[in-house]
């Protein structure tokens, strides 16, 4: 691995490059992937830096530009997810910027060439999909109040009281409901994973990001079998109609299944 000292020297020797120029890196792909006309982060044109059998998807950007606006996040995801339809891709975490193309080639690609190549091979033909479901509030509350007598009693108790007078009962009811939702989430997540069964290689049960979340799992599956995945999720949507709004996202890069130590983690 070249030292950062060397890189800086190389950088300053190139008089056509400003000090503030950087190279945004999206992810790692096989060397035969060609960039399309995708627009990247900060309106940069997406390009590849190749080293042997592997390449990095990159675009030029200025490092004094703040990064992290919604369009930056979307651009990062769009470049990677578009690629994931046609080729294996190892996504880098949002916000990776190196000094120049040489740094990408030497410090990123050659330094980890074997790991990257092995991980890309494991991902061949596969992409990540995310199944996300949100409870329909009225339906799930009704279900909980029907099933839980204590919750129903507390609901009756707060019915005629002001918010302040009934505060303790409100807290107790809210906690009961929250715990009941968590229990249902666990059960519905289990059902979802079971329903996807033989279609998926790995699954990552994500932590909930919303209090009424019913399920959020990332799965690794064959791109060729996407229609079967859609069918399986469609069946769940039918079964839970009016109770859970469920959606399938993807194909996308295998964000949930690459880790720095052990790329393409097997679950």
């Amino acid at each position: 691995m070249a030292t950062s000292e060397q890189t800086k020297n190389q950088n300053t020797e190139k008089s056509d490059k400003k000090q503030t120029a950087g190279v945004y890196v999206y992810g790692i792909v096989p060397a035969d992937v060609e960039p399309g006309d995708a627009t990247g982060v900060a309106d940069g044109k997406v390009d590849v830096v190749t080293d042997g059998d592997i390449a990095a998807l990159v675009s030029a950007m200025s490092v004094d530009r703040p990064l992290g606006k919604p369009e930056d996040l979307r651009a990062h995801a769009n470049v990677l997810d578009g690629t994931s339809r046609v080729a294996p891709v190892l996504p880098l975490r949002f916000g990776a910027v190196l000094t120049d193309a040489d740094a990408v080639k030497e410090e990123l690609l050659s330094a980890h060439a074997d790991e990257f190549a092995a991980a890309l091979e494991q991902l061949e033909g596969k992409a990540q999909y995310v199944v996300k479901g949100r409870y329909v509030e009225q339906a799930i509350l009704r279900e909980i109040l029907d099933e839980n007598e204590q919750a129903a009693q507390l609901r009756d108790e707060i019915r005629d009281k002001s918010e302040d007078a009934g505060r303790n009962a409100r807290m107790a009811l809210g906690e009961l409901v929250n715990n009941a939702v968590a229990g249902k989430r666990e059960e519905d997540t289990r059902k979802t994973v079971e329903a996807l069964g033989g279609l998926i290689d790995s699954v990552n049960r994500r932590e909930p990001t919303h209090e009424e979340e019913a399920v959020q799992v990332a799965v690794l599956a064959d791109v060729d079998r996407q229609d079967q995945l859609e069918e399986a999720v469609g069946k769940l949507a039918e079964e839970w109609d009016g109770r859970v709004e469920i959606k399938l996202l993807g194909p996308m890069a295998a964000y949930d299944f690459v880790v720095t130590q052990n790329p393409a983690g097997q679950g």
Partner: protein
Amino acid sequence: MTTAGGPSSSSLADVIDTILDKGLVIDAYVRVSLVGIELLTIDARIVVASVDTYLRFAEAANRLAIGSEPKGLSDLVSGGTEKIAKSKTKSAIEEKLGGLLGGQEEPERERVSRKSTRGDR
């Protein structure tokens, strides 16, 4: 949103859930530092259980129509509340994004389009 007609397009919230804290990380010393990214990673997580959550659930239960309506007939009403809940979540996240990293600019509203800006073929 059901899956009829294939996968849904990702909302900004979906993108955030996926890309902010996942993916390969380059060695810290190799990377040109970008102020704020790490902070954002932490702050974008949503606390799932809190007093606010409890009170909100209680109020929602309180607002449920008295007596038991037959199940399955409340679809129209519940569809509406679901939309409101979703947009609240999104704007909360976007405010954080704007505040932390986007500078003074107004956080951009979500757009549904994903069309032809997709990546490489």
